[in-house]
């Protein structure tokens, strides 16, 4: 389930501003309250894939340690894709909530 939403998770983690891979992983952990403890190596191919599809841009920067660091940022196309995915996810979450009895029917009607 998590794998199917990996792109949205990564985009959401970058919504607050540019970040390098390690910071993206930390942000996902922090914002999910530790629930999403993804294998770290899966984030980098996802960042690369999203960059190739034009949803992210990246550039090398120098870290305080002196090492070269790749920093990723959402592109305009990426922000639009994230907004669309968020809207789809909210509809999905409310519908599932309704199905399992967590959300009122009125909320579902409101979303539609």
């Amino acid at each position, binding site marked *: 389930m998590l794998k199917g939403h990996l792109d949205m998770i990564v985009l959401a983690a970058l919504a607050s501003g540019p970040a390098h*891979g390690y910071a993206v992983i930390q942000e996902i952990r922090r914002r999910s309250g530790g629930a999403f403890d993804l294998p770290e190596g899966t984030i980098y*191919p996802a960042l690369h*894939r999203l960059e190739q599809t034009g949803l992210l841009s990246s550039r090398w920067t120098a870290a305080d340690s002196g090492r070269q660091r790749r920093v990723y940022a959402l592109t305009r196309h990426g922000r639009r894709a994230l907004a669309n995915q968020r809207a789809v996810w909210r509809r999905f979450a409310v519908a599932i909530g309704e199905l399992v009895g967590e959300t009122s029917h009125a909320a579902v009607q409101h979303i539609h």
Partner: protein
Amino acid sequence: MQRSSIFTEYLDALAREMRFDVPLSRRVRREVEDHLWETIANEPNTDPIEAQRCAVARFGDPRKIACQYAASSFRRQTRRGGVITILALTGTYFGMKGRGAWYGFMQWGLSDHLKDLVATWIAIDLNAFRMALAIGIIGLGYIASRRAPMSFGPGYRRQVKGCVALCAATAVALLVSVVTDIVITGLRLYETRLPAAALVPVLSIAAEVALVSMLIAHIRATIRRIAFASSLLM
């Protein structure tokens, strides 16, 4: 620069698994190295050797990571193949049309004993080009309709091989077309007395040869990459 044999071994293993795309593997190596050092910098109270082992273990199996990179690498490679195929087809088309227009403009006729011979070669040329165009269009449609999965697997390898086969079939037909173009141009130049005017057909032929060579080189590079990436599936 800090050094760690644990990190070096891990990064070497990752680079080995990613030899299907050497420029990408160099970039990934630098990026992952930074990640691993950042990980242990954020765990100052752990034993350094143990922290390095944990960082490598948490990052994951190099082969699985390489498989994920391979999917996006081959997506780019096949799309680039599609672009080069379009360039080779349009370049050859405009080369042929341009030479025809140039011969007309220069009133560059042929002697009677060469006319029949050239007509035969022109027929071969046109049919070979039409075949290249038809296969090329099918190939471009195939490339555009395929979606790259998250990870490189046997199914995606079959798709990439399909793209390569279609590009190779296009290249063979295009090569026949370019070779016949060379023969036709050679026959015309054989009896020409206009060496300066011959520069235009010679240059257009050179451009066609360069484009087809580029397509063949790309196909060869993709086949080599597939062979390297196939080792990830063993």
